[in-house]
Structures are given as C-alpha cells and as structure tokens.
C-alpha cells in the first residue's frame, strides 16, 4: 500500500505506490498520493494546490483529465490560517478523457465521463456515473448508483454499479511502459518495483 505521508512535512513530490503506472508526461503537482494498480495516462494533470490529494487503487485517469484541489474562489492563495483540505478518491474510479474534477470526496466505482465537470461542493458516493459534458456543481451528496446524463443533466438510478475496468487496467499496465517512461515509484515491501 502507499506510504501515508502524514508524519512528514508537506511533501512536494508525488508519492506513487508500487504497482501504479504513472507516465512521465503527466503533470503531478503538490502533495499527491497514488495507490497501486492505478494508471495515470500522459497529459493527465493532478494538481494539489490547496491541500493533499489521496488517490486509491485501481483508478484509471485518462489523458487531459484534471483533478485539482484548488482554493475556493474567494480565498487568495497567500491567506494565512487556511486549513488544507484533503481530497480523497476511492478505488476503481475512471476519469475519462478531458474531465475536470474538483470534488473533494469521491467514493468507489465511479465513472466520470469525458469533459464532465465536477464542482468543489459535490460529493460522489459509489457507483455514480457522471455523463459526458455534464456539469455538476451543486452542493450535494450524489446518492449511490446515480447516472447523470444528457444536456439537462437528467438523473436516474441504475440497479448495478459500473464494473471495475480490470481488463483495461491490466492491458494498460502492460502496454504503457512499452511506449512511455514512467515516474519513479516508492519502493514497496514485497513486490519488486517496475519503473
């Protein structure tokens, strides 16, 4: 599992667990922890400005996705006394191409489709699907297994959660290192690190 970096001073480098595949062309800024079996494509951006980001395992973050823990609009970056809020992302989530996520708490098995936009105040539970180009910036907790789709962001509840993308993850973990350089991972205890 990834080393939690709570004891140390705010780390400025990413803390990538063994088994995660993070391409060098991706931009990871700030205090970011990435769990094992997570794949981060090139040109993905994970930016921890206003606090750390903790990403679980088995996530798939595709190209041009932007996961950003940003300051709220009315607070300047230099203000003192602002507590850094941690953004947590669970396991088996999929962030498709071009999506933007600022939600502070994302559960498991969610799919955020291409060009979707999640605001700061949304909390995704498990099994939610935010459709392509849907903007969700309400201040609410999205119930489990909700599908948000359509230009009017219609909603419906589905009976089963989306399946984890194990096949795709395995494939990418084999193929991506053939074509891209990977970022260095933190040495794990048992399994050898694959760079």
């Amino acid at each position, binding site marked *: 599992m990834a080393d939690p970096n709570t004891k140390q001073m705010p780390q400025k480098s990413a803390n990538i667990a063994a088994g995660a595949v993070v391409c060098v062309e991706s931009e990871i800024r700030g205090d970011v922890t990435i769990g094992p079996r997570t794949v981060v494509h090139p040109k993905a951006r994970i930016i921890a400005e206003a606090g750390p980001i903790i990403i679980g395992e088995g996530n798939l973050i595709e190209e041009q996705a932007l996961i950003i823990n940003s300051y709220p609009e009315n607070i300047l970056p230099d203000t003192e006394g602002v507590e850094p809020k941690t953004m947590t992302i669970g396991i088996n989530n999929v962030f498709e191409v071009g999506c933007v996520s600022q939600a502070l708490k994302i559960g498991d098995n969610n799919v955020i489709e291409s060009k979707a936009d999640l605001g700061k105040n949304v909390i995704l539970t498990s099994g939610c699907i935010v*459709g392509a180009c849907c903007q969700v910036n309400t201040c609410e907790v999205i119930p489990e297994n909700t599908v948000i*789709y359509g230009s009017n962001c*219609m909603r*419906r*509840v*589905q009976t089963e959660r989306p399946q984890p993308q194990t096949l795709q993850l395995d494939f990418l973990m084999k193929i991506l290192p053939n074509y891209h350089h990977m970022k260095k991972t933190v040495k794990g205890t048992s399994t050898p690190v694959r760079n």
Partner: protein
Amino acid sequence: MASLLQPDRVLYLVHGEKKIRSPLSTLYFCRYCSELRSLECVSHEVDSHYCPSCLENMPSAEAKLKKNRKRICNQLNENFRCANCFDCPCCMHTLSTRATNIPAPLPDDPSKTAMKKAYYLACGFCRWTSRDVGMADKSVASGGWQEPDNPHTQRINKLIEYYQQLAQREKLERDRKKLARRRPYMPLAFSQHTIHVVEKYGLGTRLQRQRPGAPITSLAGLSLKEGEDQKEINIEPAQALDEVEPLPEDCYTRPINLPEVTSLRQRLLQPDFQPAGASQLHPKHKHLLIKRSLRCRKCEHNLSKPEFNPTSIKFKIQLVAVSYIPEVRIMSIPNLRFQKECQVLLTLTNPVENITHVTLVGCEEGDPEDINSTAKVMVPTKELVLAGKDAAAEYDELAEPQDFQDDPDVVAFRKSNKIGFFIKVVPQREEDGDVTVSFKIRHDFRNLAAPIRPSEEGDAPAEAIWLTHHVELSLGPIIA
C-alpha cells in the same frame, strides 16, 4: 465575416399557393414549369422506410404487407418498426447488445459448469440495461427480445375490423350515390366521423388533395382482402362502470421515489401501457424513418427522388434551385447611415455551364411583392455577363480566353463563374430593425429538359427563356 454568408440574409420569393420567401439553398426548381418551388408547394411522398441504426430497407408496400398473417393490431404496431433494433425507453437512444460470460451447467453433465454467453441490452448514453426492468439475459444475440403484450389487443383488433368494414360499406354507398345522382361537385361537408379507407395502391395524396375541405383520417393503407367475405362483425358497445377503483390509502402519505417516476415523454412513448414507474419501462422496437420524394404539384414531375439504398445519400433526381438559378450573396457591407448612400458589394454566382446574362431591375413603387424593403436601392442598369461554370478551370493553365469589358464602377471583380458588383443603398427608415432591400433578377435560362425538336438539329440545343426572380437582402442594422 461569416455572418454575411448566412443563408437567410438573401431570400428569393416563390410564387406558389402562398408567397414564400426563403433562401435559395432550400428551394427547388421545376425545370418543366420553369419556376421556383419551395417545400410547401410540392407534394411529399414516402419512397421507402428504413431503420436508422441497422439500415435495413423496407419498401412501403412490403412494410404494409409484412406480417400480414399476424393480427391486425400487431400489424399497426410492428408495421413501421424495425425487427432488430430497440430504443432505450429511458433516453430513446438506440440500444446495443452486450454479452457477458456466465457460468452455466452443461446440458450433458449438470455437475460441470461452462462459460456461456448471455446477452443483454444496454444503452450507451444513459446506461440503462435490460436487467433494470427485470428482463432476463437471453442466450441468442438477436431475436430473443419480445415486447410485452397489450392486454387490450383483442378488443382493439375487433374494433378495427368493425370500423374497417363500416368504412368500406360507407364508401361503396357514397360511390353508388355519386354515380346515381351525377352531381357536378362533391359536398364538402363530410361527417367528422367518417373514416376514409385509403385505396391499396393509390397513395391518396393526389386524390385527396383536390378536396381541400374534407377531413382525412386514414388507416394507413389497410384494406380488406378482395376475396374475404363480407361477414358481419358485431361489437359490444363499451360499458360504463359506476364504480371506479379507489386510490390506494397511502396515496397522500407515501414519499415519492423520484428516480422511479417516469417522465411524460417516457410514458407517452409507450401509449399501450404508459407506465408510471421506471421499472416497467420496456424497450420498444425502433421506429423506421422514411425516404421521401418531392413532386411538383402543377406538372407532376419529380423534383427530388432519393436512392433506394439507405446507405446511399445521393439522389436519382435532384432539381435543386442552386444548380439552376444564379445565386446572390452579400460580400461586404459598409457602415449604413440613415439617408446616406452606401455601396454594398454583392456577388453573383452562375451555376450552369453556359454563359448567363443577368439584368437587375429595381422594384417599382407600389410593387405588391415588395413589402419588406426599408431602403431605396440603385442597381446597376447594364447587363451583367457571367461566365459558365467550368469544373476544370482551376487546373487549366491557359489565361482566361473570355474578355468581358467590365465597367469598374459596377463590377468589382470577376473570378471564373462569379462576379462581384456594387449596389447603392439609401436607408429610408431610422429604426432598430435591419435594413432590407429588394430587387428583381432577370436571367436567361436554357432548358435542357425540353425535348429537342427534330427539325432543328444543327441549332443550339435549347432556347433561352428569361426568368425573373424577386430577391430580398437583409443588410443589417443602421450604424449611426
């Protein structure tokens, strides 16, 4: 300035039953009548039906007769629906079939399990699956999905048969009366409840159009077979019940589960059941789309006839106006000032291959067609000559052999089959709307459709006739 090229800036007037002004790109040209036609003055006919997702073709006659052996009510339902494709009941997108591997016991040996493929329907847009409504996975990829049966099918069938027979009988009586009395004109006040049965092969559009006052409701081409006996069908009248089912007791107190409530659109797309709950939304077969052909009402020639094959977007006959009539487009507009003369640059494009002579004429005072113009316009008085459209011209390195003496005050530039020319506009009204000018274009048209007279073989293939069109341009607001 792409906004100047917007199609609705330049409108051509169509003389039909109604005077319609619309851009040239939406108009058709009947070269037998030598007139412009718009979509409202042509008759639309259905050529064939096709499914938009599997592109399977079904010509009209076959669609009517398909499944003739099944009951008539099903005929109405499955009549114009594809057999293979389904629509998502939730978002109306096309459903796709997905497969999963499930372990299933082998038929020979129940103790061993093998992976078998199970198929279910899923929507790629709203992620609806057939498992959401409880439909079991099927073992065949297509053809296993059934629509639920309507409990009122039998009653509806009987009613339809009865009314068909009634309509047939009334039609016979009417025809008999017509022959007997030989009235010169048909009484137009038909009863509202008479159902007209459309003849089997005549599409009814042309015949019924000549009686503009009659209400027309047709049973979409159904008709009794010729050999069937005229057996009497009796129906029981519908019975009115005194007691109505009471509302459930917790009707007012039960909290609404909003995701379970269907929207009106979802409900009304299934008129047989109109389910109120999302767990009863079953997928329906996909509706077929039509290919339509257009026909001039005066001369009955086809103006537009698409290809039969649904994968082909070409046309067998395509008499669109832009390939026969010179097109006026706005190229640049200076700042328009109230009561000050401004010069507007327009272009004129020649779509045909021979040289076209165009004369522009301003509208006279009191012209009944000139209702929208808000400015005075001075058009060039001389005749403009347009070169023919030569598709190979850009590859031809020879200098242009044609030398038109262009008056530089009138013609700004000339480029293959296009010229740019100036008109002078004096806005007359100082108001917020657009400045609109109108004038008439008179050009010569060589009708290649007319048959060549055998006596004049060596002559030019066709005579030129002069056509006049009324054109309106919308030039934008006045800038003070």
